[in-house]
């Protein structure tokens, strides 16, 4: 594909005269298609998961999906170079919103992370992640070196530390933790000497110890404790873990059939339409369904990586790496949590879980990634 910018283009027509539509056609739409396929599976699963609830979340999620497509177009249209140029003001606004949540936020599910806008509730931490990715991309792109220095790593880390602390103060530890893989992915690609990884691991351990003693709330500690010994609390968090594994396992190879999962239909599963939606899917569609959805996620990441590989500048590459790293970690952590590989925390599944802000944020990210792809020839 890189050959298009080579010999053929110069002989046929000037880059500026390239028809807009033809250029649009070269964008890696496979990424959007896998996102939409996952979203459709999500709609169907949200419907099944909420059939025992007082409200069916399918129409609401359909609205969010529609809005998602809208913000995708906006994000796709906006020039990422322009956005990264103004990433500092964007970042500042995002931080102010996080502060606002701390002051007037609404509480839901043990975390005070919601901002009421009329009848709607928004979770600014989702947008703060994108803002932070923009700022980090700009900062790291400007460092035109093979490896980052220690000071540069610290500077980048502190850009992430601020929103992380603010989100952690909202008692949304899962949300706060999701900044880390984004930062890590971007640092790795931007170039971190191996010795700093050792230092980073040590710092992480110290931070974990400090966090356990000073930051984490009792219910959060319980989750970790029951993960380490699931039998200790069969009625509480251990119960959720156990019920989720039963749901997943009972799906077997072919699943129990749509809306036939007893674990979800009889409400044994917690948070069925949000954090544990993958367990519903696993129960009803079996390993076949699980493998299909995991494949779609892999395709999304694969296509995203392809876009990064042919992006025209460092900013574009780093932005995509940041967005994809966060995305991949969401998928990996949530699915691992559902089969009891990692402690339970409130991390939803992109495009699949019910959730407004999260869906919007993921479509913005998709729009930004494909926007990078659309602009790979500009000013060449």
């Amino acid at each position, binding site marked *: 594909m890189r050959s298009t910018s080579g010999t053929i283009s110069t002989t046929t027509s000037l880059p500026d005269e390239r028809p807009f539509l033809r250029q649009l056609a070269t964008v890696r739409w496979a990424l959007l298609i896998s996102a939409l396929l996952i979203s459709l599976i999500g709609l169907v699963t949200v419907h099944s998961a909420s059939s025992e609830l007082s409200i069916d979340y399918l129409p609401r999620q359909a609205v969010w999906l529609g809005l998602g497509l809208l913000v995708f177009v906006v994000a796709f249209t906006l020039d990422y170079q322009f956005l990264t140029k103004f990433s500092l003001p964007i970042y500042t606004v995002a931080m102010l919103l996080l502060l606002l949540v701390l002051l007037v936020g609404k509480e839901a599910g043990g975390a005070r992370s919601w901002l009421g806008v009329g009848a709607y509730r928004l979770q600014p931490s989702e947008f703060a992640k994108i803002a932070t990715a923009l700022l980090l991309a700009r900062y790291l*792109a400007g460092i035109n070196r093979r490896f980052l220095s220690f000071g540069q790593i610290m500077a980048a880390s502190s850009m992430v530390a601020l929103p992380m602390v603010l989100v952690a103060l909202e008692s949304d530890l899962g949300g706060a933790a999701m900044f880390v893989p984004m930062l890590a992915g971007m640092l790795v690609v931007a170039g971190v000497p191996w010795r700093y990884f050792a230092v980073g691991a040590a710092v992480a351990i110290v931070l974990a110890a400090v966090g356990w003693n000073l930051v984490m709330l009792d219910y959060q500690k319980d989750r970790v404790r029951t993960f380490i010994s699931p039998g200790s609390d069969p009625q509480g968090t251990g119960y959720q873990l156990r019920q989720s594994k039963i749901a997943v396992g009972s799906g077997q190879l072919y699943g129990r059939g749509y809306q036939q999962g007893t674990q979800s239909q009889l409400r044994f599963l917690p948070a069925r339409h949000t954090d544990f939606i993958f367990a519903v899917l696993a129960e009803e569609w079996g390993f076949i369904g699980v493998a299909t959805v*995991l494949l779609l996620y892999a395709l999304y990441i694969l296509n995203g990586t392809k876009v990064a590989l042919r992006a025209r500048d460092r900013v574009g590459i780093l932005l995509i790496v940041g967005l994809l790293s966060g995305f991949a970690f969401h998928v*990996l952590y949530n*699915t691992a949590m559902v089969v009891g590989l990692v402690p339970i925390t409130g991390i939803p599944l992109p495009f699949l879980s019910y959730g407004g802000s999260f869906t919007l944020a993921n479509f913005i990210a998709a729009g930004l990634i494909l926007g990078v792809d659309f602009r790979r020839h500009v000013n060449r």
Partner: protein
Amino acid sequence: MRQVREHKEDLLQRLPRLQLVLFGLFLLIAARFWFVQVVSGDYYLELAENNRVRELPLKAPRGLIYGRQGRLLAENVPSYNLKLDPSRSQDLEKALSFAERCLNQPATELRQALDEGGGAGSFRPILIAEALSHSEVAAIEVAALEFPEFAVEVGHLRLYRNGPITAHTLGYLGEVSQLDLASDASPLKPGDLVGRKGVELAFDESLRGADGQRAVIVDSRGRFKEEYGREPAQSGQNLNLGLDLDLQQEAARYFEGKAGAAVALDPATGEIRAMVSAPSYNPNIFSRRLDRDAWRNLIEAPEDPLQNRVIQNTYSPGSVFKIVMAAAGLSEGVIDPEQTVWCGGATKIYNRRWRCWKQAGHGHISLHRAIKESCDVYFYHLGQELGIERIAKYSRQLGLGRPTGIDLLGEREGLVPDPDWSARRRGTPWYPGETISVAIGQGPILVTPLQIASLMAAVANSGYQVRPHVEESPSVEKEQLTVEPWVFERIGAALWSVVNDQRGTGSAARVPGIDVAGKTGTVQVVQQKTWIKSEDLPYEQRDHGWFASYATAGDKQLVVVVLVEHGGHGSTAAAPLAKRLYEIYFRDYLDNDQSS
């Protein structure tokens, strides 16, 4: 536009490596799903099924018990029980204090029931209160959302309509013991009620029926969603007894404030018409599983109210035993019925003075008069001539010293003493003087009131005995005795005189219009040196009074045996009840007789 030569190559080199790591993690997760879903899928499917399916017992209603003429004696009434599931309780203390307020029952009792049922760690609901009133049920149900750990369960409570009146015959229920549960074949579950005494115990299996089961699908809060399968309960079989409630009630009334036993049976079939033991108890308290204090009080009561004196207590037969003596003497040809013996109020045998109950003596006395007036001296001599071996032989022949085979459990066999028994059990030789005591029904010989009733049936039937039974059934188990009918006819004539002749000791049982025949008996509880009126002694030392009898009117017959503990002489203490029972049992005959 400022064009900077950028170093992209490093980034583009590292990116695929990051991607590789991510895809590796994806494969790991997929492998984990494969393991959980495909390798261990069966295990989790079974857990899912256990999650949603609850097996609820369907209690089989216990069979009803009827008396004669279809009169209901034991039934099942609906009852509301409160169960507590500790595994669903967030705050057990709060729940208990809530129950305390609703039920007006001290929390300590509720807690005791909880602890006995398995305590706070139990995973199955524990019965903590029974027989709730409608308002109590309402108070609990209203707070169902706040206290999901409580469940009101509709159960059945056994109700004995006549309470203490039929207590010993019908028996009562109790929670199944660990021992009964230990057997693998047992279909019983912990907490089940089973028959513990009387008819409820003896006929437990047929009365019990078989519990069914209902499999229901529940949601995560245990709420019923739909039925999944059902195995219906099989009701217990109803049971008809030959018990005549009127006789039973009359006998129970007679024994108010007294101790003793009364049994009435149809000598032709062996069907028990009345079986009363006093003092009695209220069997309905056992239908509730929780009233342990009442249970303890009954067990520890000195007068032994739980004992069924008709089959479980043994007494000296006293003069009633003279019937056996007469049968032995006549059969063995030892006595000529026409020959007389001199009674001067006492006689000397084996260098000892033996007193007749009548200080003035009976003068010249034959067998007929000796039975009628219960002369002791006549039977002292008869005993001496028969010897203990022959007395024992005829005693056993007539049903003493062995169970009658009644269809109830726990029957005692009594004791027919002989030299062999003395050597084996006492380690002492048999003293000839003891034979003289046994001859008038004193000494070591012991009988149950039912054995005496069986003996009277043999006399009434002139030669055969029937196995007594409480169940109303057409099958009659007869046992032909070797004692010949003329012997019983001779004795029967004397027994008729006891009641109907001048100077008969049983005149208190006389019922004009029907033929009552009987024998009084008085058992000395403490050996007296001289003639002392029993009424002058303290209660515990007073004599037991016997009256053993049968009556015939038309084609109906009835045997009545009455024993009043410490009641004094049988003629005054026991005979009047026999009279009343005959009046009731033969009232149709008597009414017709008067009108014609």
